[in-house]
């Protein structure tokens, strides 16, 4: 029953954005580069001050919560970047527990168990004793998701979780995101792939250059017309049957030609 209402207003970048996300739901933020997705994102995470509007979590104003309390509600999954030090993967996941520890606290047995459970949940237990900096991009992304899960948040906020990943890893990470939502987490993620919205059956906010944004279900928002308006390119949205799957996907039209497989 948890429910975030995002009333947000930023004079310079994004204005009057509002959205709703409840547990078990996925909200994709879609939009061209430089439109303010990241700014919006940082505001939701509390990394930037709100210039207007408000963010409500469970009926409470998010800005009245301390960083530590906020981190117990919202977990952040950044884009995988290599840190300067070669931490052990399990240590990285345990770091997600920090918000539950006192200022001078150290993780204890309970925290190790929770971290181990989170790794199991994502089926990456086999990475536990590896060195984080030596993992592939996809593995690092999964570890960061596990770390955010160890925070035991109600919501996950993910910054382009599939960028920089290869074809297979993109699918794997996306599958896990859908699974987590099924297990009851609310997920907000930015993405550059309209297809992801279809694949996760997510709600979507499409942000455009003039500050206009459209929110709704995938079918309502991801239309050929809207995508053309947002990205300035022609797009085809296709439906197809493959075995027992109903597929819906979009494909930019990059050439004038009417035939050929592209």
């Amino acid at each position, binding site marked *: 029953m948890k429910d975030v209402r995002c009333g947000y207003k930023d004079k310079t970048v994004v204005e009057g954005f509002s959205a709703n996300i409840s547990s078990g739901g996925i909200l994709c933020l879609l939009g061209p580069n430089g439109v303010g997705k990241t700014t919006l994102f940082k505001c939701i995470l509390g990394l930037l001050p709100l210039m207007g509007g408000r963010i409500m979590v469970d009926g409470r104003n998010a800005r009245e919560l301390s960083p530590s309390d906020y981190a117990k509600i*919202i977990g952040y999954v950044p884009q995988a970047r290599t840190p300067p030090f*070669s931490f*052990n993967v*399990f240590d990285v996941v345990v770091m997600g527990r920090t918000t539950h520890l006192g200022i001078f606290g*150290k993780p204890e047995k309970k925290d190790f168990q929770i971290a*181990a459970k989170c790794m199991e949940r994502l089926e990456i*237990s086999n990475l536990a004793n590896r060195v984080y900096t030596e993992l592939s991009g996809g593995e690092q992304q999964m570890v960061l998701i596990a770390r955010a899960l160890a925070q035991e948040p109600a919501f996950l906020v993910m910054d382009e979780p599939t960028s920089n990943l290869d074809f297979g890893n993109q699918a794997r990470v996306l599958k896990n995101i859908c699974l987590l939502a099924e297990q009851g987490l609310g997920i907000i993620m930015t993405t550059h792939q309209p297809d992801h919205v279809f694949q996760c059956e997510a709600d979507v906010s499409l942000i455009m250059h003039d500050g206009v944004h459209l929110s709704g279900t995938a079918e309502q928002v991801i239309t050929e017309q809207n995508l053309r308006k947002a990205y300035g390119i022609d797009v085809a949205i296709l439906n197809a049957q493959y075995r027992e799957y109903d597929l819906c996907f979009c494909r930019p039209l990059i050439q004038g030609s009417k035939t050929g497989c592209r």
Partner: protein
Amino acid sequence: METCDAGRLTVLGGNENRLDRDDVTSENAIIQAHENSRQRERWILIVLFIVLIATILASLTIGRYGVPFNQIIDIFTQRITGQGVSEANKEANLVLSVIRIPRILLTIMVGAALSASGAAFQGLFKNPMVSPDILGVSSAAGAGAALAILIGTSSAGVNIVAFGFGIGAVLLVMLLAKAIGRGSSTVLIMVLSGVVVSSFFRAMTSLAKYIADADNKLPEITFWLMGSFAKSGSNRNVIIMLIALILGAAPLLAMRWRMNVLSFGEEEAKAMGININRMRAVIVVCSTLLTASSVCLCGSIEWVGLIMPHITRLLVGPNYRVLLPTAMLGGGIFMLVVDNFSRAIIPGELPVGIITSLIGAPLFIFMLFKGRRDWS
């Protein structure tokens, strides 16, 4: 077609194997492996502690006035049992209690302090190439000391002025960073401000050296800048350093788990529930206190704060939970060994700063090769 099917079967078989392995490597296995590595870390700490004790005992015997080991035991038993030091041991006892023991204690504490602040700064600035004097502490303290010597204050006066300059430099850097960054002082602006402030104070030191009397003041300034424990090993200094070490290192040790999170960057740390501004302030204040008090008592001793956290990281990994205590122990041992060299290598005394630099530079290059993946 058949080969295709066969290939598919193999793949499935492979998958099943992987599932089995995942089940084995489950929660308990992870925790067990983690427990094992912590056990190993504990052993390393214990071994280092024993090495430290052994080095202290060896250091007692080293020096111009040779005190053989059995005489040391003799003196200690006589003092502990309260029967008074015998006539034959009086002189050796004096050497030990007035000169050697305070110097050894001071050396260890300075090594530990420099290592701790180096490790803390490296995490804070997310950069393993950072050393404790990144914010200009050392160069400012050096300038303060040079000016104090020039004016001709007492040795305590030199220490106080050096300390004041060191702290002042960091305050200046913080103010600059805040003013330039307009409230949101980033790490980069802090480092750049540190570079500017350092260079300013180095110019002041050069100025002081230029106008100093070449017969007595200049050698004194130069010697001070090289760093040495020769004049600083007094009981008073031991107590000063002990207080600084407790005030500076205790908060760092207490927060050492959070320092891990900080090294992932400010945004991630904040999203993991850390009050980043408060924590950064505490780390800067504590590290500055440690560095400034070391520098003001013993002159600028370079490299220790840079290489000891590195060596330790190669030994126990980057987790501050074990890295910080290990680096402090290691720093104490390293400093003590180096100081023993400086006492024993030539009849007079070689400034310890020279030796740390001579050892530090090649050692660092060696580690650049060896530990490349640590900071790639």
